[in-house]
């Protein structure tokens, strides 16, 4: 498939007069950014950036996303960034936002967004006000003040994209793509505008894909390097569904109504269970079990970035619960890099053999 590259989207956005907002993982209101004239481009590393660049600001025991993004945002590569949005995803991203804002002081502003961990009435009321607060900051940076109807139009568009994304993400077996192609397409949502993604999704070749061997559920934050999928296929298995923070954990519920902020608040609290919002274990496991069973996944591979505490806390209980339902489980921890180590590949290979 011909998926536009990040730099193409950045170029197009600039030509259109839009500004670039760098956005850190995981949850944020895309429609709001778009309404204020920002094209969100997400940063999940990037993997190619030197890890050592962030070490002067953060200790070694901080995750690679923080190290690499800090360095990247401080480099010439980020010259197009008009603002950076750092949602409060974990202690590490909290620290990153604070350190960049207070000490590094980049030329473009750092915006933050607190995502409440609960799903109570108080959480919803707070989310609404937090989004209003973010809107005010976006207005200052962009100089734009979109009307409610403009914002509602962006919400409508994003709702459509969410529906399309969900349909694709949940129907791996209906698309004639390799695993790597399939997940490259899903991950293009990290930078593609809703309208481009919707258009692209219509062009996915339908048909039965060549899925060999046992199907696995892939969980974790981000599957970098993407060659991970090739190796899984090479060992004789395939990824039938995912619980990745960059993919399926962002299947929000399309929400409707008259008040745009209220819709966005509802949407921001509607994602599937996620480690970073501390979903209670029983709820998360029930969801994962349902998905594993629906898709006939024969095991679960958690592919995690080192030092990611939210993920780490769930592992022992998740491993036990998966094994209790006779689903083999493999947990791998790695740093963001361009290559996978032999040790990791051997473990994945052995895991696939167990499933076969």
């Amino acid at each position, binding site marked *: 498939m011909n998926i536009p590259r990040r730099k193409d989207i950045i170029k197009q956005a600039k030509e259109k007069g839009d500004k670039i907002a760098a956005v850190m993982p995981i949850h944020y209101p895309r429609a709001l950014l778009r309404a204020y004239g920002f094209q969100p481009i997400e940063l999940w590393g990037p993997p190619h950036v030197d890890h050592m660049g962030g070490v002067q600001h953060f200790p070694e025991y901080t995750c690679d996303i923080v190290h690499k993004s800090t360095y990247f945002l401080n480099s010439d590569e980020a010259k197009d960034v008009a603002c950076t949005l750092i949602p409060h995803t974990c202690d590490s991203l909290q620290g990153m936002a604070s350190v960049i804002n207070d000490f590094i002081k980049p030329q473009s502003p750092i915006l933050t967004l607190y995502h409440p961990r609960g799903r109570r009435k108080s959480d919803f009321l*707070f989310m609404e006000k937090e989004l209003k607060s973010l809107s005010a900051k976006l207005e200052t940076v962009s100089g734009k003040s979109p009307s409610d109807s403009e914002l509602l139009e962006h919400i409508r568009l994003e709702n459509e994209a969410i529906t399309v994304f969900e349909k694709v993400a949940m129907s791996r077996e209906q698309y004639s793509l390799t695993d790597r192609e399939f997940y490259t397409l899903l991950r293009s949502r990290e930078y593609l505008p809703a309208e481009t993604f919707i258009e692209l999704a219509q062009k996915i070749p339908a048909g039965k894909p060549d899925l060999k061997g046992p199907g696995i559920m892939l969980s974790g934050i981000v599957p970098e390097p993407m060659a991970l999928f090739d190796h899984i296929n090479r060992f004789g298995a395939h990824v039938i569904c995912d619980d990745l923070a960059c993919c399926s954990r962002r299947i929000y519920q399309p929400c409707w109504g008259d008040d745009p902020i209220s819709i966005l608040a509802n949407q921001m609290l509607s994602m599937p269970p996620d480690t970073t919002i501390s979903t209670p274990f029983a709820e998360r496991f029930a969801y994962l079990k349902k998905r594993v069973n629906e898709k006939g996944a024969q095991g679960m591979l958690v592919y995690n970035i080192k030092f990611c505490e939210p993920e780490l806390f769930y592992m*022992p209980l998740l491993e036990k619960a998966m094994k209790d339902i006779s689903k083999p489980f493999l947990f791998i921890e790695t740093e963001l890099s361009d290559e996978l180590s032999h040790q990791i590949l051997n473990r994945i290979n052995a895991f696939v053999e167990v499933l076969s």
Partner: protein
Amino acid sequence: MSPKNQIDDYRKAVAEGKRYLRKQRLQQEKMILEETKKPHTLLSPPLKSLARMSELLSQNYLEGSYVNGIKKVAWFSSGAPTEILQSLGFFLYTPDNHAALCGSRRVAVEYCEAAENVGYSRDICSYARTDIGAFLLNKTPVGKIPKPDLIVVCNNICQTILHWYQAMGVYYDAPVFLIDTPFLYEDAQDHQVEFVKNQLEELAEVAERISGNTFSMKKMTAIGDIGMEAAAVWLEILNKAKHRPAPITTFDAFILMGPIVAMRGQKVTLDFYRDVLKEVDERVKNGVAAVITEKYRVLWDNLPIWYRIKWTAETLASHGIAAVVSNYTLSWADSAQKLDPNRPIESCARTYLKSLLNRSAGYKLNDMKRLIKEFDLDGVLFHSDRSCKPYSLGQEDQRAILFDELHVPGLIMEADHNDARVFSEEQVANGINAFAEMMG
């Protein structure tokens, strides 16, 4: 067993235990008194109050060992508001304090390993691993851990604590109530305060239901008053270290902080800190120096290294370094200035939202600058705490800025608050040696 017999047994066991603990405290006081008569070259003998503190905390743990079935039990995180729970008659227990105690008693590594054996990573908080391991091994140095009827967790100290307490909720099959405190990158906004206030009101309803008692604002305010007063006295004690030579070090404060963390809002805690203050005042009056040859005065940033408190204090003292203040111990003095008895819930929300660990790295830096001035400091010791990210992120820049702007040197010491396996004595000792030279 009938409820009456159970209550009788509980009262008997607690009374007997208290008698034993009183005897133990008197013996300990006698030993400290004898210590004061001996000549000392590095550190002054411990405060007599340490014996009373030990008795106080042990009494609390003793009651906790027998309390299930007698009173409802609420676990709370160390930064969580306790006033509502206390006013409803819950027995309170904080896993954070238990974990720290396990660290100082040097049993934490065994417990951490038990947690690691079931899959918890060595990269997660060592307090969490300690408490999870204690559960898995069914072991504790405090007798018996009371089973919670309600777990209240407030993420104003980190997000980790939420994951940790949720895991405990699974193990103990207890409901977890979250008080979600948005991180303050700048000053607290109205909607952030309102959010916390709303949750505290929800907590009152939940806790009321579980306790079976009726919530009384009057009762809560009275408890808040005691807590506020205890925090004020605690602050006064810590501020005594502004005196030269400092009558206490931050290592004394680390040990003394147990009751203000675990038992704030209780009259016995307030009385205890008043006694400590008298003893510290006495030291000031008599010119007693905590570090006998106090030459350099430094700030300690971050949690203590619980399993090496004595070693760290002595190693620093051997260079004439007195760690006279810590932003960690000061965190529990916060409510001294902010709790408004006329608007208890909102005031409570504001206070707990503004906990130091819920503030930006820049705010922390400014606080360090204030402490450097007020305590007349020569340097800053940054404990880079491997399994406490929120406290440790930002230290590299803070150290560089303090040196650039104030010419105050800083040392980053890599260790962990509870996991002794990541502590390298030689490396830390070398660092302290170099640090003393930098200040010289």
